[in-house]
């Protein structure tokens, strides 16, 4: 391998950023093993009490809830995002292509808080969904959508959709359309050609999209905070509730570390589960 000194110059900004992240992470780790001193900003001596406190069933429940909400979000984002990505790649009309792209990517341009407040207007008892269903006579009483896991997942799917669509579109765009045409020429209908050719070939994109959506959702804060209303909590909400809102930074740090470990563990499991599927995709 030839030595290319200019590479060092290019890599140095990224290396500096990485260094800053490592330093921040080290600070969080250090706080997680320090005692909380009531009424003071300074942490006390070394302790494992913060981690011992996490063994309460409440925290286990919230961690499991977080994983479950992430799975639901990744799954429904895939279901909603795949047709959008497929249409985006295969649409021949430029205007239609642009419309799909705008619809898919717009959520990225809105702040998370603005987006979430909009969902409060849509999901509320007097919101858009309930008003329409009441007027149509489908329901007699408003459905409880706010402060429920269902409402949180709907809003999170909206937040995560652009990531999924972009990743799936990139994967689908790399599939040679001749494969599908070949299947059709051999007698397969469009659905069979899609299920037996396009879908398996897009698996790497699906795996990447699901994994990224999962990790993206794991760190969600404003959406579960506002739509969940304290009744649906994820790890980030616990960090806020128990750490920052009460100045107990050591406990907040231990929650963050536990959340980080859980994220890595779940992502490793996902990776292991996805490995056999990856072999199906194009090599």
């Amino acid at each position, binding site marked *: 391998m030839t030595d290319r000194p200019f590479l060092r110059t290019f890599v140095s900004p990224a290396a500096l950023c990485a260094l800053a992240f490592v330093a921040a992470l080290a600070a969080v780790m250090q706080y997680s093993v320090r005692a*909380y001193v*009531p*009424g*003071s*900003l*300074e942490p006390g001596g070394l302790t494992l009490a913060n981690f011992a406190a996490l063994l*309460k069933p*409440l925290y286990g*429940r*919230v961690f499991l809830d977080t994983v479950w909400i992430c799975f639901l979000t990744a799954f429904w984002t895939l279901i909603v995002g795949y047709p959008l990505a497929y249409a985006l790649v295969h649409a021949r009309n430029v205007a239609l292509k642009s419309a799909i792209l705008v619809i898919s990517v717009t959520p990225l341009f809105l702040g998370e808080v603005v987006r979430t*407040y909009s969902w*409060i*207007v849509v999901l*509320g*008892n*007097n*919101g858009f969904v309930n008003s329409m269903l009441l007027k149509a006579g489908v329901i007699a009483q408003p459905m409880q959508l*706010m*402060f429920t896991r269902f409402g949180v997942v709907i809003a999170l799917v909206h937040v995560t959709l652009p990531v999924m669509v972009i990743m799936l579109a990139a994967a689908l765009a790399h599939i040679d359309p001749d494969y599908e045409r070949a299947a059709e020429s051999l007698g397969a209908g469009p659905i069979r050609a899609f299920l037996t050719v396009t879908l398996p070939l897009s698996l790497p994109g699906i795996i990447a999209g699901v994994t990224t959506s999962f990790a993206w959702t794991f760190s969600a804060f404003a959406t579960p*905070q*506002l739509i969940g*209303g*304290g*009744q649906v*909590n994820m790890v980030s909400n*616990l960090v806020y*509730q*128990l750490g*920052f*809102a*009460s*100045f*107990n930074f050591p*406990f907040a740090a231990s929650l963050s570390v536990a959340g980080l470990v859980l994220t890595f563990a779940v992502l490793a499991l996902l990776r292991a589960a996805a490995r056999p599927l990856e072999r199906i995709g194009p090599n």
Partner: protein
Amino acid sequence: MKQLCFAITALAVFSAVPAAAQDKLVVSVWGGSWRDMIANIIAKKFTAETKAQVEFITGGTIDRLNKEKLAKGNPESDITFTTSHVGWLYANDGLFEQLDLGKVPNAMNLVDQAKISPYHIGTWAYVYTIGFRPDLVKDMAFESWADLWKPEMKGKLAAPDFDPSHLITIAAMLSGGDAASWEKGQGKLKELKPNFKAFYTNDANSQQLIANGETPVQVILSMNAHYMAGEGVPIRLVIPKEGAVLGIDTVAIMKGSKKADLAYKFINAALDPEVQAEVAKFKKGSPAVLNAKLDPAIAGLPGVFSTADQWNKQAIVIEHKLRAAKTAEWRKWFAENIMN
């Protein structure tokens, strides 16, 4: 020669400007309407009196606290506004200068409840009390905090998720205790759990949830309720017979500030009775001095205290230092037993 003439002229011009005009006081405050209010009312008066300019550093309570902690000894701001119990965290960490109230003539009229510590004093006050939508919660009067526990309140109540100290103290009081013996109210508070519909995370969230009727009853910041009423939302704010939980925003001088003299003048301007009346009118809160002449329409609002008698009879004061020390414990217990 030309250069010498220029230098002399420049020197003459600069020496003609009062020294104070080149001074600048840095004030740390929450953003939004709080910053605007301080800029338009307090800083305006201060600048008129001293010719010194005011620059603002804005941010959330915790962000500003953290930043000042990191800058200890060489503060980013000269003056900090924060809530009374959070002020104790600054003070305990040696971030505040001890105040010499002899340099703040207007502090003579400070109400007793606003004398928080040797380091920070109150500038205005508000209450957390019961606010409700009479159009959505019919036949409820909320004469007592105990009314929140009524079965017909099931699934209607919201409270702040960032500070449970109000309900923890109230539950303790209803159980024969107080904030210091808050454990007495734990059982009572657990009985309230079915009545919670949600917990709001900030003022905007509180306003939205009561405006759209999602949570028709709230333990609400009085200023928010008055603001929403002004926007046409039919909210009624009540002071229960036990009183309403007092909140005081305070001002302090940062330790290490090189503008302490100006900072004292700023605090004095903040406590000026006319400034206090304007602040009360703008935010619909209580002035921290007793000689402020309030517009009768403002003085008549629930939760606006303009007399010592009102302060003494209607305000439930959670001892600020105790609150600072207990916040984490209360918050953890509330999150573990009520919210989750």
